[in-house]
């Protein structure tokens, strides 16, 4: 309970900071970068629930991101359905697919689970690319409409910024509540030892499936937000590499840490912008940063920085 209160305060501070940023930043480019950070944070958070807390790795998470984006694109553009109706459809589609794929896949563990989810991700990506009459194929899907409530459209970057970060904040609170509950404890128990968790009465298979479905729903929501922000989607955005990028965000930021998802997503969104100056060396430096962080701060930046801080304090005390 104490933790939750602390978290609420943190969320409040964070909300205030986000509001201030949203109001003060004038430059559309910065706003847009922050919108993408928000979408990526949601993605990282969704995977963190599955991977960080429940300990189930997924190398195909971009598939759900894509399912969300494509479902809303197809419904709202091809069939002219309001995006607000397409949203539940997108989330539900992702959840249904997660349910049917999760049942056999989540029985696997370790590298086998990694490979199973990876295979699923690649198959979904091929469907995006090959089902041309519906998805627009490799060239992509054009003409996705902006979001509107009555006459109020989320068509400026500032408005969209608030929408995205509102959603992110909402999920920060939701995820924290889940983690601090009976369900969250059961998930962490599965992470620490699946046998022991079953031996104290946790239905591990059902619990894993539940969190997988929840995680898919969140990723699909991120896809929805992405599609209505850039009005264009193509299969490349939801490829295997995108899945790897999401995993990287979670791991770099810190597994089993809600704020870690924010940190990881921010870093991996901004890093390429900073590395731009290095031109041809960009790829090498990006790879090097990944390796160095993992070698020296294997628990991710959030935890790593905290540890360094605590160690230095201990030293000072002595």
């Amino acid at each position, binding site marked *: 309970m104490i933790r939750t209160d602390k978290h609420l305060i943190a969320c409040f501070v964070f909300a205030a900071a986000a509001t201030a940023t949203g109001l003060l930043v004038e430059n559309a480019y910065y706003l847009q970068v922050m919108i993408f950070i928000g979408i990526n944070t949601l993605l990282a958070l969704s995977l963190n629930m599955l991977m960080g807390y429940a300990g189930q790795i997924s190398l195909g998470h971009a598939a759900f991101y894509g399912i969300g984006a494509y479902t809303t694109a197809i419904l709202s553009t091809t069939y002219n359905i309001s995006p607000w109706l397409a949203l539940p459809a997108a989330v539900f589609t992702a959840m249904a697919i997660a349910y049917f794929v999760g049942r056999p896949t989540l029985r696997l563990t370790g590298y086998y689970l990694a490979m199973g989810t990876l295979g699923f991700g690649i198959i979904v990506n091929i469907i995006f690319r090959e089902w041309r009459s519906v998805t627009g194929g490799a060239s992509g899907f054009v003409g996705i409409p902006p979001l509107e409530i009555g006459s109020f459209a989320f068509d400026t970057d500032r408005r969209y910024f608030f929408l995205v970060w509102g959603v992110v904040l909402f999920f920060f609170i939701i995820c924290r*509540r889940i983690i601090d*509950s009976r369900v*969250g404890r059961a998930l962490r128990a599965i992470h620490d030892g699946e046998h022991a968790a079953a031996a104290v009465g946790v239905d591990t298979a059902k619990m894993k499936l539940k969190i997988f479905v929840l995680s898919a729903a969140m990723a699909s929501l991120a896809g929805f937000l992405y599609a209505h922000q850039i009005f264009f989607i193509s299969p490349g955005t939801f490829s295997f590499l995108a899945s790897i990028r999401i995993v990287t965000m979670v791991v770099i930021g810190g597994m089993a840490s809600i704020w870690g998802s924010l940190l990881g997503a921010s870093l991996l969104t901004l890093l390429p912008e900073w590395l731009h100056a290095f031109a041809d060396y960009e790829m090498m430096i990006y790879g090097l940063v990944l390796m160095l962080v993992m070698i020296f701060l294997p628990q991710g930046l959030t935890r790593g920085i905290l540890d360094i801080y605590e160690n230095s304090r201990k030293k000072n005390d002595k």
Partner: protein
Amino acid sequence: MTSNAHLLAIDSISKAFGGVQAIDTVSFALSPESITGLIGPNGAGKTTLFNLVTGIFPPDSGDIRFRGESISGKAVHELVGMGLGRTFQNVELFSSMSVLENVLVGLHTRTSCGIIGSVFRTPRLVKEERRARERALELLDFVGLADLAHQRSSDLPFGWQRLLELARALASKPDLLLLDEPAAGLNMGETDTLGELIESIRKHGITVLLVEHDMALTMKTCDRIVVLDRGKKIAEGPPRTIQSDEAVMAAYLGKPK
């Protein structure tokens, strides 16, 4: 003898791994609120029997009934819900969680909050959570770890980890508690405390099945003892009888011709 009189009835079960007959038509039964010890030399099949009872794998033949109901085909977590708790030989705590949280996970089957409930936090569930915490602290108090509730469980010394595991198993409110070598790795003093704890667990109306190497502990705390050797039951009875049983002596000390 009707099976209803027994909490757990093991009826001529067998289990083979490859060509090795790990358990060979073993039968025995536990009456309610008893403490039964399961002993035998290394490789006697104690752990296999333990795993059969806790539902890790099913027997090849025979039947295990818990309160008259067959447990075959039931998943491990369902057995916990039915009232079957266990500990592990090598202590398997949830290492990233606090001492209190470990016990709270033990209360999983006795609470009901789901994902949706945890998000909305209805008054009923808030109350449930508060009760769960109170109950968990009580259990920690019972095993003497209440002061350490907010420590990381992996930071505890080994003996205390065992006690915590016991508290966690008790949290699921079992009718039958299966302890897999609870004294392994404990010093004399700790073993004595453990014996007392097992006694008071029984006083709470819980039946105990103890798989143990430590003879002193078994002889002191158990009402009945079942002896296994090479997958077969070779003796069963009160400790004193077992101590003087020739077959048991032979199994432990080598067979005199």
